[in-house]
């Protein structure tokens, strides 16, 4: 089908001899292939388990400028250091960038991190932002493997485009992280799956013979590999026949029948569900992959499926069986919650599949973003990180500005077993705050016992002797400081159905929002100045919810729009704190000038260079609904009542609008007793006849955090969770508006 295009492309690719830094391919528990390009006639890799002891050597096979060295007989899950040389000798030490860790033993529960990118290959600034946002977010825990869902070298997948827009762009990552690719249509302009030729197939060394796990596909166009307890399947949605009786889908069936991994993750370029720059209801490659490949994948219980091509981020609900064209959601959504541990709870992956479109790795985004299967859609560039940890997968969308805009947890219960999903261990929980517990148990478990340990499991106390097996319970974390807290959930009728978390920490440090956007404020919008103590007292002014102001139409509370304008308007409210503030963040929305005070001390001033007097106008403007964030000095706060006050100034007597809203985020540190106070001590527990102890803490099954004792402030009870929900609601609303 593509002979004409291919001929041109092969000519193009033949003329380029590019330099490519070393990159990893076909990484397994016992081998890896290191590939690079330079002008040398020969190549060799020196390697070893210490950076300054490159004692082993493997001669590379060389074809043109490309060298490929296959290192075999390696140890499982072991870090190696290497140097790619011209064969004239090994250097004393490996470069800091040149190392790799072999894959974990297949089937093991070793935790690992995966980076997923699609449609990145522009070579432009957005692509770099996406990469850097990921690097910033992962910090010291970089991804263990990298999946690319295609379109990695725009516009035509030529050798030079690969070198610049893929190998150059991700060079430092690729030196130590294996990228497993799926071919996109743009690579398909110069590559041919039938002949496995062209720059895409030149660049990658992929397992066609089952060497990395899975059944031999006989081609590099589609293949599978195992990594720890995940079986990965990569399909060619562009250039291999997609019919049910074609070789690719026949192989898929055989490959999945032979998989025993806990998880199955599949990816290819053309997504089965999307309303981004492409539409899965109309385009044949997308329709065929949905109608032909998905029934096979779903019948084998595939858990997570990634596509690209459509330039958007989309993440589905947990779904099953939605193969028709056009796609409708009715009857196919298995879980209509958000899939978040801190929200409606994780999805049980035994029941369905999550579909993700990650076509937002660099190219311009577009689309209606309203696919009925999608829980979340975002028209902005980013990439996906997912973490596999035994029976749990946590997936996050890392937007190019570093924000995590979508988060999802998949869990996989084992039949006849109870699985604690949250907390898992490693969390830091504020003492006295709501501690949500979530678990999965077989349907015939009627009730569960919930216990807490503060000493790593040596002693246990009951939180609930028996609570219905509805999968969740929100308890109040005890007022204790420990790094060895654990919870345990057990079927009251069958003690073998039990699971406990790893150690998590209870701390006196608590992060919360005593004032959320949209909060309630006293205000003074009259023509005369308030009394001098206006920013240290409260009471006696009218109240209204933010946003407060006039003239834009988006105000919740409309203030006096006098003619000429009143130059200055005042706002205040009080919050109560029960500990020392160690960190404070202020986010304000203002038009045109703003000053903020805590207990009378000014902590922020924008465009108030002409003074704070009532009759003075602002000294500048940042336009409508400008936003600013500042970290402020925590010492201005005090234990007990605090007055937060703000004044907002007009630009002139004739300006049409004025706006104000404010969010305050605090970290409060309280002194807490050690773990001895929690169990068997006097910290609210009572001995029980059987020698165990029972916590006297309240339980809060509705999850709203209401009336929980010992929180960092008094206004929190009403604000914390609704505030978070409100913010999330706004995000969804913002997306809807963009459609």
């Amino acid at each position, binding site marked *: *089908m*593509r*002979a*004409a*295009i291919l*001929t*041109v492309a092969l000519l193009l690719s033949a003329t380029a001899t590019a330099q490519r830094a070393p990159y990893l391919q076909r990484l397994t528990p016992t081998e890896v292939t290191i590939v690079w390009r330079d002008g040398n006639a020969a190549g060799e890799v020196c390697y070893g388990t210490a950076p300054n002891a490159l004692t082993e050597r493997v001669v590379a096979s060389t074809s043109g400028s490309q060298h490929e060295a296959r290192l075999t007989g390696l140890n499982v899950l072991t870090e190696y250091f290497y140097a790619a040389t011209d064969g004239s000798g090994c250097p004393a030490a490996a470069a800091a960038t040149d190392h790799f860790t072999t894959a974990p033993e*297949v*089937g093991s529960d070793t935790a690992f991190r995966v980076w997923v990118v699609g449609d990145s290959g522009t070579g432009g600034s957005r692509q770099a932002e996406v990469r850097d946002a990921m690097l910033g977010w992962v910090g010291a825990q970089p991804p263990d493997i990298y999946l690319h869902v295609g379109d990695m070298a725009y516009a035509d997948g030529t050798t030079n485009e690969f070198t610049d827009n893929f190998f150059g762009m991700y060079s430092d990552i690729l030196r130590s992280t294996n990228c497993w690719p799926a071919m996109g*249509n743009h690579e398909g*302009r110069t590559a041919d799956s*039938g*002949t496995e030729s062209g720059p895409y197939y030149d660049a990658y060394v992929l397992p*066609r*013979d*089952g060497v990395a*796990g*899975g*059944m*031999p*596909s*006989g*081609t590099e166009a589609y293949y599978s590999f*195992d990594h720890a307890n995940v079986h990965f399947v990569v399909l060619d949605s562009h250039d*291999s*026949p997609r019919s049910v009786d*074609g*070789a690719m889908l*026949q*192989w898929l069936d*055989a*490959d*999945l*029948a*032979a*998989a*025993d*991994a*806990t998880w*199955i993750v599949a990816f290819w370029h053309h997504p089965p569900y999307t309303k981004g*720059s*492409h*539409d899965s209801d*109309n*385009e*044949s*490659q997308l329709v065929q992959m949905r109608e032909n490949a998905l*029934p*096979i994948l*779903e*019948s*084998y*219980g595939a858990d997570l499926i990634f596509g690209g091509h459509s330039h958007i981020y989309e993440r589905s609900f947990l779904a099953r*069986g939605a193969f028709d064209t056009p796609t409708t959601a009715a009857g196919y959504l298995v879980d209509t919650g958000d899939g978040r541990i801190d929200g409606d709870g994780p999805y049980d992956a*035994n029941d369905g599949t999550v579909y993700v479109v990650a076509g937002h790795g660099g190219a311009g985004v577009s689309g209606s973003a309203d696919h009925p299967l999608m829980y979340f859609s975002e028209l902005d560039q980013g990439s996906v990180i997912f973490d596999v940890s035994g029976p749990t997968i946590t997936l996050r969308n890392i937007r190019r500005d570093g924000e995590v805009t979508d988060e999802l947890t998949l869990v996989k219960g*084992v*039949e*006849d077993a109870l699985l604690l999903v949250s907390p898992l261990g490693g969390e830091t929980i504020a003492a006295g705050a709501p501690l949500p517990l979530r678990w999965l148990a077989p349907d015939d478990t009627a009730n569960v016992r919930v216990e807490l340990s503060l000493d790593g499991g040596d002693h246990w106390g009951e939180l609930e002797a028996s609570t219905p097996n509805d999968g969740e319970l929100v308890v109040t974390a005890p007022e204790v400081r420990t790094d060895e807290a654990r919870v345990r959930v057990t079927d009251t009728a069958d003690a073998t159905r039990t699971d406990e978390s790893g150690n998590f920490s209870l701390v006196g440090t608590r992060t919360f929002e005593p004032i959320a956007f949209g909060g309630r404020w006293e205000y003074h919008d009259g023509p005369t100045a308030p009394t001098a103590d206006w920013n240290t007292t409260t009471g006696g002014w009218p109240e209204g919810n933010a946003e407060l102001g006039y003239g834009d139409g988006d105000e919740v509370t409309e203030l006096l729009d006098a003619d000429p304008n009143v130059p200055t308007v005042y706002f205040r409210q009080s919050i109560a704190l029960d500990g020392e503030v160690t960190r404070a963040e202020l986010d304000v929305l203002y038009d045109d000038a703003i000053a903020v005070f805590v207990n009378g001390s000014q902590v922020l001033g924008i465009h108030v260079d002409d003074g704070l007097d009532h009759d003075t106008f602002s000294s500048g403007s940042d336009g409508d609904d400008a936003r600013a964030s500042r970290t402020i000095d925590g010492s201005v706060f005090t234990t007990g009542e605090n007055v937060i006050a703000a004044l907002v100034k007009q630009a002139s007597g004739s300006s049409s609008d004025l706006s104000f809203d404010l969010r305050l985020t605090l970290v409060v540190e309280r002194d807490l007793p050690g773990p001895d106070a929690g169990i068997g001590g006097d910290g609210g527990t009572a001995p029980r006849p059987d020698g165990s102890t029972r916590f006297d803490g309240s339980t809060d099954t509705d999850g709203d955090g209401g009336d929980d004792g010992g929180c960092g402030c008094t206004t929190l009870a009403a604000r914390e969770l609704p505030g978070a929900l409100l913010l999330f609601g706004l995000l969804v609303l913002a997306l809807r508006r963009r459609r």
Partner: protein
Amino acid sequence: MIRPLIVLVPVLVLGASTALAHDPPNHDIEELTERIAAHPSAPLLVERAELWLQEGFADEAASDLRMAATLEPGDAIGRAVLWAEVWRQRGRLDEAEAELDPAVAAGSVEALAARARIRADAGRLTDALADYEAAVARLLTVDLALGHGRTLERLGRPAEAEAVYAVHARRLGNATVLVQARIQVLRQLRRHDDALRAIDTQVRHARAKSTWLLLRGAVLAEAGRTEDAVRAYLAALADAERVYRRRRSVASRLIRAEALAAVGRTAEARAEAERVRAASPQLAARATALLAATEASR
């Protein structure tokens, strides 16, 4: 006077083409249409023709191919495969084949592979076989190898089909689908030991081994080695149970049901098969087959 005419024709035709007969079903077609409007060129038109064909718009593809030929005559070989696809989609297999003949004569392996498929679709198996043989000698892909073997099977020549699958599988890293096809033929030919050896090349790759162990059991049973067959079935059931505990998929439930049936636990097998049939349209046919096969021993 000829020169201006040549220039004029494409411009007129292109003008018409920018107002497409159908709404482009595909973002890439839309993009290409813009590029073609700005800088008309034969390669872009050929690329768009290919996309039209992908979406099943044969007439639009034909018009793009004609325009490409007007703009840039030549490259008849490269475009022949696309023209053949136009005719194939119109249901005119003879025209499709005629389109490919010159390209095949000129040495295009792609045209040869396309013609093999068209001849097989048209039921002209001997001609298809000749094309497959010529094609796989120059370009071996799993799809072509499958087509080659399937054509021989349809011609009633299983021994040759088996040999073809064996050779191709060896050259393609023991590609599973070719080995599967070969095992089916070996069973027909009652070459049980060869079938067992072929199964063993795959079992070592499979982490969940029950489907392969069930197949092994079936071959052993066909060979009259009943005790060995039972051992294979019991091993299949044990592995199916292990996998089912780990992956509660409808397919692993069905494989477990098949293993239960194989070891004679018919009632359990049937109950499981009923559940699969109710839960999965995809696997309903296989579940129904299991129910039918166990009907007698109920």
